[in-house]
Structure formats: structure tokens, C-alpha cells
């Protein structure tokens, strides 16, 4: 079983603070982490490999410093890491991003399963996973919460929905996006950390891919950002004071009015 896990390096949003005076983002000193949802994808890939053999390749597209995210994935049990980094990729929207990742996966060639997190915590679009599957013309199952069985060349999984879940069977290769419920990611072991430190990260630029330049970066992206602004802060609220009975009565009246 050859598994490719696609990850993204994102700012750790806990540390993003709003400057109260200018009402803008303060990103200085914000740490970069692996997108939290991708941690489940890495863990699931490694678990499948441990059970059925094969290898796990982690793939990311980003600036040179995204190498840190790949090393962390290696420390968690991935075998190989590939970084797609090139100015030609800058400004990519979800269309161009999934195109570029799909080109890299075509180059990797030998794969049975692609695993992605359900979405990235900074963009929240949930488009890149299905986008990769479509570019590669393979099936997908989104929001996978459990892999029930992998046998021969078929897999059976549970897909989370708003009301519960669906049981879906698919041939291989297939792309899954996974949700938090699928597993509890492990902590890196010392041996993994040591290995990750010295492991070689493969770097690819657009020249390494058989990609149509018209589909890359800003020029290959159908969407453009025309305006970025800070939302109006919520008007400051009213604090209810007094003893418990008084507060409860006030609150009951408010609720009665709002319902």
C-alpha cells in the first residue's frame, strides 16, 4: 500500500491576536504548525502502513520554511517528504493548488491511497482534497471518520454527514479527506525525531513537474482577492449585574423577547 498524505503549514491561530487599537491581525511571532486536520491524515496513513506495509509519502506546497512541517510529519512515521516550492506557485487559489499537487502526485506515480485533512484551518475551504482527486480523475470520499476494511483492491469506509454517517465502498486508488473522529494522533518517538532531523527532503519546482504553466500560481487561479478588510467589531455588550435572582430574571426577559 503506497500512501500519499497531503499537508499544509498554517499559522497557529491560537496565537493570532487582534491589535485592539488598529483592529488588525498581529502575526509577529506567530508559530507555524501542521494544519490540525492534517495530523489525523498523517496518523491514518502511518497506521495503514503499519498494518499492511508499503510507505507513506508526505507532500506539501509552500514557502521553503514549510520544510519544518514535513520534518514533523517524518518524525510521526512518514517515510518520505516532498516540498513543492517555487515563486511560480505563489498566489495559487484552490484550483491552482490542487492542480500543482496533482502534478506532483502524477510524478510520484505509484500510489494506492491519498489522504488529506478535511480542510485547512486558515482557509477552511475543503476544496483542495476533492480538487486533487478530480485533477487525477480518481474517486474520492470526503469526511471519512473510519476505515472499516481494506481488502484486495477495495476499501470500505464511514463518511460523516450532518445526520450520521454513510458506508461507502471504493476501488483503489482513491482520495480520502478525514475528520478528527478517525483517530488520536501519536506523539513523535525519539527515534522518529532523530530520523526526521537528518532525513533528506525532496525539493521540486515547476521544472520538475509536467505542468502547464498557464495553470500555475496567480495566473492559473480563476479567483482573485479584490479586497481584504477587518469585520466590524461586535458592538460591546451589556453586562448584567446584581444578585443571582435579579440577573436570572433580566436574562429570562431577554430570552423571552428574543425567542
Amino acid at each position, binding site marked *: 500500500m503506497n500512501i500519499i498524505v497531503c499537508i499544509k503549514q498554517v499559522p497557529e491561530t491560537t496565537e493570532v491576536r487582534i491589535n485592539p487599537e488598529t483592529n488588525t491581525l498581529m502575526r509577529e511571532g506567530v508559530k507555524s504548525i501542521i494544519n490540525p486536520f492534517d495530523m489525523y491524515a498523517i496518523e491514518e496513513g502511518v497506521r495503514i502502513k503499519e498494518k499492511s506495509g508499503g510507505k507513506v509519502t508526505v507532500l506539501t506546497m509552500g514557502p521553503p520554511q514549510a520544510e519544518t512541517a514535513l520534518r514533523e510529519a517524518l518524525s510521526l512515521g512518514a517515510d518520505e517528504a516532498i516540498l513543492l516550492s517555487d515563486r511560480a506557485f505563489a498566489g495559487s487559489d*484552490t484550483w491552482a493548488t490542487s492542480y500543482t499537487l496533482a502534478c506532483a502526485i502524477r510524478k510520484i506515480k505509484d500510489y494506492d491511497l491519498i489522504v488529506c485533512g478535511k480542510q485547512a*484551518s486558515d482557509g*477552511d475551504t475543503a476544496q483542495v482534497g*476533492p480538487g486533487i482527486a478530480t485533477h487525477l480523475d480518481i474517486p474520492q470520499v470526503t469526511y471519512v471518520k473510519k476505515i472499516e476494511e481494506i481488502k484486495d483492491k477495495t476499501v470500505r469506509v464511514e463518511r460523516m454527514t450532518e445526520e*450520521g454517517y454513510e458506508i461507502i465502498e471504493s476501488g483503489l486508488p482513491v482520495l480520502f479527506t478525514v475528520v478528527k473522529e478517525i483517530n488520536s494522533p501519536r506523539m513523535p518517538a525519539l527515534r522518529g525525531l532523530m530520523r526526521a532531523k537528518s532525513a533528506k527532503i525532496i525539493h521540486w519546482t515547476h521544472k520538475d513537474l509536467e505542468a502547464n504553466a498557464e495553470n500555475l500560481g496567480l495566473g492559473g487561479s*480563476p479567483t482573485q482577492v*479584490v479586497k481584504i478588510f477587518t469585520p466590524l467589531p461586535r458592538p460591546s455588550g451589556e453586562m448584567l449585574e446584581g444578585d443571582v435572582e435579579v*440577573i436570572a430574571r433580566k436574562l429570562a426577559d431577554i*430570552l*423571552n423577547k428574543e425567542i
Partner: protein
Amino acid sequence: MPIQVIVEKCTGCTMCVKVCPFDAIRIMDKKAVINLDKCNLCGACEPACKFKAIFLEKPEASIRKQDIGQYRGVWVFAEQKRGKVQPVVYELLGKARELAASLGTEVSAVLLGERLEEEVQELIWRGADKVYVAERLELANYQDEPYTNVIVELINKYKPEIFLCPASSVGRSLISRVAIKIKAGLTADCTELAIDKDKKILLSTRPAFGGNIMATIVSPDYRPQMATVRHKVFPESLTDMKRKGKIIRESFDGRLLNSRTRLLDIVDEIEQTVNLSEADIIVAGGRGLRAPENFRLIEGLARSLGGAVGASRAAVDSGWMAYSHQVGQTGKTVCPKIYIACGISGQIQHLVGMQSSKVIIAINSDPYAPIFKVANYGIVGDCLEILPVLTKNLREVLRK
């Protein structure tokens, strides 16, 4: 260089520094300097500069659709489950009518499934001028490939200029595939949609970076312009039983229905009578409740109000509540009319999952808890004392 500071125009005012989501701009010698290793070419700085000192090279779309003018009309994907059109579709139809009015065009719904007679009528009453219907046994339940193939076929045949889709587990999976296949611009989870009066294009606005920043996104050179919207962002359109519309039944090549995945079973497991993302009222608890058994106070209040129970990640991670109740970045995003946060401090990950609620009430013993920053009504105090009294008072008020 794809992005440049025009030094003669730059005054060093720092406006661009403040809007840069990537911390890529610094002022050096009173001029802005862009660090290209950090810059993502997102374009936030260009409109923020009042002196037009930032030049962002926007390459002409090389695969620009030649026939943009032929694309007309606003379409809504009428997601159905078990033969029932989902309420979010009626919310999208309301917005689609506004957009179509600005463009002087019509609204169409596209409905895939099996035996949908009554639903077709309802879509017309709710604002669709046309309903495209594809009824086949294979389309009864959502499956990625057949749905994608049929939608792509219909878009290529009828050429709508705007295509709206629910940001649901079905909609997000479907529309991502469609947008790739036809190379269209897709903006996820929009909170506002409008038409640019001069250019006649769709302006899609969405939160970015965990809701701290809003971005307006366009796709001027590709059609249709696609957007997804979550449930409860826009109001539902009202039923007008006098409305008339046209029903177009589609036939197509059966090969479009091929699927490499097979849906074996659908399992519903709503533990509660009210689904969290559907609820109008949510009472949520966090670690401030101090012990798992105190969640019964939350449940009691929720029951009196006919609402659902939510929980913070801290409460879920402590094993006090099931994950299906978790609100926030790694849980559910909710937008009820009333959200009551009890003993929840309000970490940013929680806030992004609930801050678009209409009215937020927060009860917390720490007067500096961040939850109070988003609350319409705040109470500094102990939930364990306040909740029982509130529930009792509320029952009396509601009885009247």
C-alpha cells in the same frame, strides 16, 4: 517582479503593513519593503494603499473563456436528502433572486434525485423561475461522480453565469469537483454575495484566517462564478403559491451515472431531538462547569428553551460530552438565534465556531474571559449558581 512598491509614491504610512495577512511588509527608511519569501501575492495591500504605491501584476487569464457573454442566469443547486429539499436551498433562492434582479436575469434551481414532484413545485413557489430536474434511481442519494457529471453536463449545456451551492457535506464535495472540471472560480462559505454594478460580476465575501479578516473574492474571467454558503447565513425566501415557473426535465447519457464508489448504507444517529447546526437556540458548556454531571444544568436550560446542547473542546476532551456536541474550529460551526456560553472562556478556536450567532449570552466567573468580547449580554458569575435560578425563572416567564 509580480509585486512592487513604487518608491516615489510610498509615504511609509504603514497601511499596507497592517493589512498584510502574511507579515511580509516592513517599513525601512520610511518606505514599504515587501519580503518576497513571505508574500503570498494575496493582493490585500494593493487596495489598502491610498497612494497607489503598490503594483500587483495580475496576469491576464490565459485560458479565459471566449464566450463569457453567453453565460446568463443565476443557478442554485437544490440539495435534497431522502427526497426533501434542504432548508439552506430556500435561503440560497432568496439571495439568488436579489442577485438576478441586479443583473436583470432569471433564477433557476437544479434538482437531482428521484420522485421529486412536490419539491419541484415548492422550488418555484420559493423563487425559481425554472427548475431543471434530473430524476434517476441512481441519483436518489448523493454520490460524487454521478452528481458531478450531471451538473457539469447541465452547466455546459445551459451556461449559467452564477452557480450557488450549499456549504454542506454534500455541497462542498460536489462543487469542488465541478469547479475543477470546468475550470471555474469557487469561493467557499460566503457570508455576503453582491453584484458589482459596473462590471456586472459576483462579489463573494468570506471570512479568512479564522474570521479575523474578511476577503472579497471575484472571478471575472471564468464562468460560472461559483460560491457556497452555509446554512442560516441568509434568510429563507417565503413561499408564494401564486408564483409560476417552468419545469425542464433532463435526459442524458446513462454513462454519466457511472460511479467508482458505491453507497452501501446510510446511518442516522442524531442522539438528540435537535441537530446542533440546525438549532435556533444553543446552550453550551465548558470547563467552568467543573464536573461532567453539571452538564445536566445545561441540558435543563436547553430543554426549557427547546434548544440544543453544545460544548467547548475542553469539555469534550475531558470526556464530559460527546464530540458531536463540540462547537468550534475542530467541531461544528453554528449560527443560532441565541447562543448561551456557560463556563466557556472563549478561545479563538471556539469563537470562530459561534461568533456569527445573532445574540450571544456569556456566563463566566472570569471578568476578563475573551468570550465577553463577543457577547451581547455578559454575566460575571458562577454558572452553577446562576443556571438553576435562570431555568426556574425562565419556566415562569415562558408559562405567561
